[in-house]
């Protein structure tokens, strides 16, 4: 069973290793994916900043014609030349508004959502877009406008009227004098986000926020799991309180509720101080489990697998498993089945447990025990022709007969119930011994057991025998004397009686030994030889000592018992079989008519 167990252990180890590798691979993949997304977010922010910078430049360049237009310059000169404190003339305001509207329309994609023409103090002379300002309203203190009024070209981001605008401003110069400025604003809205997501930061989601309110956003169309506008809301409060936001730095990647990552940053401009910023998010494709990694494989990946190596290796491993299973499971089961079949056909008397291993050996022993019990009870199962010697020879004092014969040498190792030693063929006082019957052979002396078990009875005296006469072949054997009070153990044949005491076998006088029939002697000898070899082998397998066990001694006992069986049952022949009973070798005799 070692091979198959080792094989199972190997398979289990391989399976466990495979699961561990898959689990580790899943974790590694998730970590790599997250690292990749973090790097992408860094790149996305740099890309977005660069794009907004370029757009600011484009905006500044686009309003240059507005600031240089003659009508604009003259209108602002007139407005700036009014008396201090006086209102801007309506005619000037109207004229300038119309001109700015026309020029703004011509900007097309860079047309402003808010365009102001301010005088040299920053007072609004004309406005295009948005809500009309009150008379006298101004923008002079806004840093963007102040810079433009001082002669600089500059961009900014404003919160104006609860909306957020990208602003650009240029000074207006007339006759060598600063007479005002053009202030141009483009709203930050979903359309801007969509353009940026589609062209600059593909695969990422973008959202702009003003404090805790997300006011513009866009998601990629082809990215599964991309965060939406609402997904960006949760981390905003923490982001706004962080020092990195006030410093204009990008936040650490924040995990959104969908498992995506997002970075937050303030815009470039005055609106950063009003907590206006943007967030860029990307989904993180985490694996649902170790098996999910297979879903990522493409057809090329599958084609790249070295199937020419893997399939043969699998076949070899499979065949090895089959071989080990055959060797350690199938074949022993077949042997057991065959033995059981023979047992059923009466070709075998008992299972030979040494022929099997492990649980099958235990099963064989259990079957043998069951057979013994059936035989003992005599109920149900038909009487087998191969009977226990005890039944053949008769029980001695309701205890199993001691072992068939014993041998000089080591005493029996255990006191397990052994087959009761064969009872000495002591004729009972009232045994009817037919005249002419040969005197029963002297029984072998059974040694006294060492353990406190009932001692073996002494050899019964020879029954008063009639005058010696040639023994008839079919003479019934005298009834067996009561078996000596053997130990309850059923010692196996060859054991030292029913316990551990050494057993001595006395050599019978040759005169009392019946002479075998001439025509069956050779066959009988061969049988006895075979039985002896089997008995030796069985004893060895059972771990019993075989020192001192010789064929001569063995055959003497066989012959004697044969005679008894023949006499008792009138059988023509007796066949002996070796079996294991209670872990010890034993013999069974089967009379054959």
């Amino acid at each position, binding site marked *: 069973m070692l091979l198959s167990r080792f094989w199972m252990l190997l398979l289990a180890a391989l399976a466990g290793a495979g699961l561990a590798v898959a689990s580790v691979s899943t974790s590694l993949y998730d970590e790599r994916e997250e690292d990749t997304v973090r790097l992408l977010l860094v790149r996305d922010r740099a890309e977005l900043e660069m794009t907004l910078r370029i757009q*600011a430049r484009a905006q500044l360049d686009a309003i240059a014609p507005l600031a240089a237009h003659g009508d604009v310059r003259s209108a602002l000169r007139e407005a700036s030349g009014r008396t201090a404190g006086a209102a801007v003339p309506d005619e000037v305001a109207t004229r300038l508004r119309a001109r700015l509207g026309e020029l703004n329309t011509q900007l097309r994609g860079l047309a402003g959502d808010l365009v102001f023409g301010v005088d040299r103090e920053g007072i609004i002379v004309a406005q295009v877009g948005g809500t009309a300002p009150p008379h006298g*309203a101004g923008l002079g203190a806004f840093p963007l406008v102040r810079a433009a009024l001082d002669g600089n070209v500059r961009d900014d981001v404003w919160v104006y009227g609860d909306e957020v605008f990208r602003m650009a401003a240029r000074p207006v110069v007339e006759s*060598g004098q600063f007479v005002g400025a053009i202030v141009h604003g483009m709203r930050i809205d979903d359309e801007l986000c969509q353009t940026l997501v589609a062209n600059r930061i593909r695969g990422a989601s973008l959202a702009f926020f003003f404090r805790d309110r997300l006011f513009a956003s866009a998601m990629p169309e082809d990215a599964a799991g991309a965060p939406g506008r609402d997904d960006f809301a949760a981390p905003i409060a923490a982001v706004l309180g962080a020092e990195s936001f006030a410093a204009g730095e990008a936040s650490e990647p924040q995990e959104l509720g969908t498992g995506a990552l997002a970075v937050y940053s303030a815009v470039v401009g005055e609106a950063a101080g009003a907590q206006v910023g943007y967030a860029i998010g990307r989904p993180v494709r985490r694996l649902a489990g170790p098996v999910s990694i297979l879903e990522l494989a493409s057809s090329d990946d599958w084609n790249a697998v070295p199937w020419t190596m893997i399939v043969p290796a699998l076949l070899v491993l499979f065949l090895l498993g089959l071989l080990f299973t055959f060797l350690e499971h199938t074949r022993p089961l077949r042997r057991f089945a065959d033995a059981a079949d023979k047992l059923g056909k009466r070709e075998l008397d008992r299972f030979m447990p040494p022929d099997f291993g492990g649980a099958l050996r235990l099963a064989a022993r259990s079957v043998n025990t069951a057979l013994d019990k059936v035989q003992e009870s005599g109920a149900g199962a038909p009487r087998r022709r191969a009977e226990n010697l005890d039944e053949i020879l008769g029980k001695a004092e309701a205890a199993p007969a001691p072992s068939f014969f014993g041998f000089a040498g080591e005493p029996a190792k255990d006191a397990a119930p052994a087959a009761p030693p064969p009872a000495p063929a002591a004729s009972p006082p009232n045994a009817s011994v037919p005249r002419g019957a040969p005197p029963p052979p002297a029984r072998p002396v059974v040694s006294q057991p060492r353990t406190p078990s009932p001692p073996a009875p002494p050899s019964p005296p020879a029954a008063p025998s009639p005058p010696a006469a040639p023994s008839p072949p079919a003479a019934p054997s005298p009834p067996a004397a009561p078996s000596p009070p053997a130990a309850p153990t059923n010692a196996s044949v060859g054991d030292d009686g029913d316990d551990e005491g050494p057993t001595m076998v006395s050599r019978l006088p040759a005169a009392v030994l019946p002479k075998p029939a001439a025509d069956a002697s050779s066959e009988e000898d061969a049988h006895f030889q075979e039985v002896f070899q089997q008995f030796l082998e069985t004893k060895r397998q059972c771990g019993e000592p075989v020192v001192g066990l010789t064929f001569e001694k063995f055959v003497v006992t066989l012959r004697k018992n044969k005679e008894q069986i023949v006499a008792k049952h009138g059988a023509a022949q007796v066949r002996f079989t070796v079996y294991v009973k209670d872990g010890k070798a034993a013999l069974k005799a089967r009379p054959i008519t």
Partner: protein
Amino acid sequence: MLSLALALGSASSALAGDVRGALTVPSDLASLAPSPAEEALPRLRYWDEWNGFIEGRTRRLDVASEIAVVLTGGPASSGEQPAYRIHNGTLSPATLVARAGTGIQIRNDDGTSYELFAEGLGEFGPIQTAPGNARPITVTAAGHWVIRDRAHPHVLGHLHAIADLVARAFVEPSGAFVFRGVEPGSYTLRAYHGDREVIAPTPVTVADSRELVVPAIAVTAAPAAAPAP
């Protein structure tokens, strides 16, 4: 009784006179507006370039907005006072002086909303004031607070609440000032720029209803660096 009250009021106002004067403001007095150094801070803009053909204008101090001239040491004057308002993108005046315990209103005269607040003054929190609306404020205790705007970080002002404020002057860009309708009495002339007084307290006695001209006073306080927006 009504006619008598009116007569007394007329008589009082008839006694009230204007107090004029002028401040000599040094040219190096720092403005409350963000300095170029502050504007060089990163991430305030992508581009800030010279126009390319005309030299830029130098920054100038808005004396009328940034310097507040007041009389203290008496009951509140009933004469005309300059309004508090948001105009041209900032507070006007930027240095506000109010009598402690009295309410004032700051009117939004611009085209966008503002959210003014005073740092550390719970009575003056960031509440949006739409264009054309006025923000009422009552400061109960005397003290000084910085005023900012939550939507427009460039806005910077200073609020001084004085217990014995009498009157606030109309200040001209040149530094000239006038108190209108000051009742006769002895007062102290003070001037504030940002968070500090920029002249030594000057006693002024208004004897009658005739106009009083105070000698020019030089602003002597060291230029104060405007707090960062």
